[in-house]
């Protein structure tokens, strides 16, 4: 089985490093970024499966990072983890397709289970997409279309 790749994005260096250590103990492959810009370039280099994203950071705000990520990599799952969250931020994040929205300090087990669930969803999505591709290659465009539509519906 492919090892789950997680990118942790937070300007709080101490936090992000410790979290990475703990996730590594739980058999996750982690990398870190300390602001939005770093995160975007890290994704460009090596697309992770799940991103854990803070909102309030110097430079790019987490919501903007999320928007750009979802535009460029719609299949990357993003979990927001923030200490400054408001109802409004949560709505915005979910509207942009965040997988979940967690408040700091969060229980690690919750976070890990959400990361795994997000990964599972990503796998399903990828599977369906490859299925659709296969159907399309076989000339079954209608079925391919249906699968894609189903997928898009989920995304909404």
């Amino acid at each position, binding site marked *: 089985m492919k090892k789950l790749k997680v990118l942790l994005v937070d300007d*709080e260096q*101490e*936090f992000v490093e*410790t*979290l990475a*250590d*703990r996730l590594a*103990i*739980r058999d996750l492959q982690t990398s870190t970024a300390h602001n939005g810009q770093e995160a975007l370039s890290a994704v460009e280099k090596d697309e992770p499966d799940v991103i854990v994203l803070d909102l*309030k*950071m*110097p*430079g790019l*705000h987490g919501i903007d990072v999320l928007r750009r990520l979802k535009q460029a990599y719609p299949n990357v799952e993003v979990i927001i983890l923030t*200490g*400054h*969250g*408001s109802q409004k*931020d949560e709505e915005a994040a979910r509207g942009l397709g965040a997988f979940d929205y967690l*408040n*700091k*300090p*969060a229980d*690690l087990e919750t976070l890990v289970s959400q990361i795994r669930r997000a990964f599972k969803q990503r796998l399903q999505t990828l599977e369906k997409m490859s299925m659709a591709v296969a159907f399309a290659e076989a000339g079954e465009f209608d079925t391919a279309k249906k699968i894609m539509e189903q997928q898009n519906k989920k995304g909404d």
Partner: protein
Amino acid sequence: MPSKLYALSTSLYTLRSMEIRSPNKTMAVSGGKRSVGGELRSRYRRLWIYSVFFTAFVSLTPLGIMTWVNYTQYRKTLVAETDHLISRIASNSQRFIDGFLEERRAALSYVANRESYEDLCDQGKLSRIFLNMNESFGGLVDLGVIDADGGQRSYVGPYELKGKNYKDQDWFHEVCIRGIYVSDVFTGFRNVPHFVIAVRRDSGSHGELYVIRAAIDTEVLRRHVASLELRAASDAFLINHKGILQTPSRHKGGILDPCPIATPPFSPKTQVVETATTDGEPRILGYAYIPQSPFIFVVLKRPEDILQGWLRLRNEILWLFGVSVVLILAVVLASSTFLVNRIREAGRRRDEALHSIEYTNKLASIGRMAAVVAHEINNPLAVINENAGLLQDLIVVKKEPPEEDRLLRIAGAIRGSVERCSTITHRLLGFAKRMEPLTERISLGPLVEEVLGFHRKEAEYRSVSIQLAAPADLPIIESDRGQLQQVFLNILGNAFAAVDDGGRIDIGLRREDENTVALTIRDNGCGIPAEDIDRIFEPFFSTKGDYGTGLGLSITLGIVEKLGGTIEVQSEVGQGTSFTVRLPVTRRI
């Protein structure tokens, strides 16, 4: 999230300030200590005075004008009427006396025409004629005939005049020239006052003239005057042109005494004038010159008697006026007091409402501040959480004791985070402690730095550059630290709200003069439109929508004024805004 930090600053100063600026206070940004209560009281008092004066003026002026018009009109009418009355008495008397004299003249002329000169010179015949005439007309004292040379030819009467010659006497000349003569009154024999009528007669064909002369008792005239039925205080009499009484005055002297008033000037018609007696008492004088005689008829009335009706009416008018004035004033005073009280009451209710809104606002601010603080603390808490969790992980998951280095690093991270938390809580406590107004010696530079501490994080997140320029020789000022923090927090909060990410905020401190330091906070944000700039210090004026209470700058101005300072604003849309707070070095309380 700039709004959160802004909310924190808003909450902090709102918490501390009970003062709220009422909206009717002008936006004067000048400071200085003011007693708001006293000012209010005097304003209501002024309002009351204006109201009383204006309504009283508006209602009393027409009343006054009406009363004055009525007064003068009535007076004119009544005076004209009494003048007319006096004039009539004088005219009637003039006619009567004139008629009386004319009758005597006519009688004498008749006798002269009827009797021959010779008969008239006959003592016996003259005596008969005298008796006849007295029977017909009465009042004759004597009768005599004088020839052209002035010699008394015949005489009937109480005096011994026969043989007397009048040739050199004035009256004789006059009667010779004018044909008639009426003398002044004089008392002769037996002290009976009488006057003389003499008529010239040109006798027959000879062309010689003679004079018939009769003395007439003034009793008839006196009786006439008595018949006028004048009031006790009034007087009527005859005088001659020299001002000698020809009939007795009721009050001022008997016959032949000088008249109590100056002789009135000649007038062919009856006249009524106001005059005074020689004693200086005012009198209404009616007089008429009696033609072809030395007499003037005079009627005198006391003004108060003839004006009695007028005086009564005048009193009534004045009473009515007085009572109306008192009533109107009472109504005006009562209604003004009532109105002003209502306005004062409304003002008080509005202030109460403002206070309750402020209180609600304060509660909301506490809530917001709590949220902001919680968020600020969440980050270090998360670090502590993760480190503690890692420690657990190392022991539980890896089943082996972690190496010392790692343990120390974890402990350090935890302590560092606790440090951060306590910085936040201490800063908060620092604010909370200084709720009471104080006068402390404050160095503005460090104070501004401290306030900036609240905004550092936000500035970092939003890449807002903050420059603080504080000269080293800035004087230490006397002021209230907590309140100044509120002021700077609020203005800084506004600046942060105004600038875009990556914007710039410059803070400058400088000494302006001997007793003034100025702090300028300039941003390059969106600016304030010209139409809003006059309103930014009004309570409840806000451009922040849901975020703003609209009380921030209103409260800030209140604080600065309380501290004896001023606030100045300059702004240009798109260029930025600069707030300058001027504070006294020495606090004047």
